[in-house]
């Protein structure tokens, strides 16, 4: 393990000012060091605010280096890495590496319309027309952009939020979108 002093500071528990500074940071875990180096180069070329560090003790997968990154931009960063054939093994928040993305969906059937909520994002479709009629919730700046891009389009033709979104709100919308499609294909 490298940089043990750094790790003690970064991954200390409690609400110290340093841990608060870390609350909007995430960790990318890779299979091997070669992938970390390639990913670092790619993300630095994209001018993302990242740094290579040692992993916290809770992370038991991957190699002995991780990349710390702005968590809110997880969707765009993972998309960039995946396109470069460098998908991370895991992505977790720095301050709570054991947290998992939301996996509970709240479903509301209005009759003709069906609404699926994932975390803070809600997607509503017209079941008869298979058309997206509303998107609500969320607080990141890509939400109004995603809504403008998707509302009024059919499920088959709407852009995928995973392709055009940037933030964790976009990621939550992607999960709601996948759940709607899954339910419509049943």
């Amino acid at each position: 393990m490298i940089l043990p002093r750094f790790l003690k500071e970064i991954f200390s528990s409690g609400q110290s000012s340093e841990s608060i500074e870390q609350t909007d940071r995430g960790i990318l875990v890779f299979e091997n060091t070669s992938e970390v180096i390639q990913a670092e180069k790619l993300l630095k070329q994209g001018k993302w605010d990242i740094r290579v560090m040692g992993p916290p003790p809770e992370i038991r997968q991957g190699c002995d280096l991780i990349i710390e990154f702005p968590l809110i931009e997880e969707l765009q960063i993972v998309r960039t890495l995946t396109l470069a054939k460098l998908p991370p093994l895991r992505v977790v928040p720095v301050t709570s590496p054991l947290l998992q993305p939301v996996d509970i969906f709240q479903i509301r059937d209005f009759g003709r319309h069906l609404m699926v909520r994932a975390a803070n994002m809600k997607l509503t479709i017209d079941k008869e027309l298979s058309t997206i009629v509303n998107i609500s919730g969320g607080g990141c700046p890509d939400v109004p952009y995603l809504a403008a891009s998707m509302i009024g389009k059919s499920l088959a033709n709407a852009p995928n939020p995973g392709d055009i979104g940037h933030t964790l709100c976009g990621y939550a919308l992607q999960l709601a979108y996948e759940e709607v499609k899954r339910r419509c294909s049943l």
Partner: protein
Amino acid sequence: MLAVAGTVPSSDFPLIEGTVLLRDGQLQIGKHFIDVNRGTPALLAAAVKTAETLNRSLFAYLVGDTGTGKGSRKLYAYMADALTRMRFETIAFHYLQPIVHWHKRIQVILRTLTPKPTLIADAGFMYAAKMSGEAPLYDLFTPDAGELAFLADEEAPHPFYTRGFILHEENQVPDLIARAYRHGNAARHLIVKGAKDYLASEEGILETVAHPSEEAMEAMGGTGDTLTGIVSVLIDGGMTVREAAFTAMQVNRLAGHYTRPSPATQITDMITHIPQALRDVLGQRNQNGT
């Protein structure tokens, strides 16, 4: 005066500031025209409608951002300077990329303002306030159910990582409100939007509004933005946070009711009904002498 800081969903929209008007269904700030839809434009349109009814005006700081955070960073930097030069009685922060170190820059300045403005946070800026551990600095947050679960989860850095046992539908809003206050992750007041709207403080539930009830409003994007716009203007107009919140919850629900919404209704349809709803709520109150 009320100032609103937020974003519009365009990557090439410049950073602008100015008094906000509504002309033929579009927002106007100086020479710039902005379509009204969910997000900060919906908040501003609802705020203008409320302000016009009460003969007030409002100021906005806006920048284009489609989620990359570039526009938000520009606006954070600009606000860090503008807040030291300008004097506002009320400030509402809205759709900004939640970035902790930028929030901390703003928060340091907000603490120095004398007299301290009434501070309202919603959407991404509310996320940043919670992530920074500084929620109690604010006078009002306006979360919906999903965002309340995030505030209640002391571990979650974003709603996307809210833990399942907190998100579970069996958790009742009052319990989540109490948990958010227990961990210092709520503003002095919370309006929680939902099937029933709640106003809460650290002391507990202060007010609830459940009627009129339009189930379709849960699916409509922007109904929270309009509520935040209405309450911001009412606070700026001199009501206490409690009075303003209670009134805004009633007005927003009544405007929704007048729209006769379906889950496919768009927020622009509802915004046109805000002046009538506001007149009706305030008129009824005057009749009752309350």
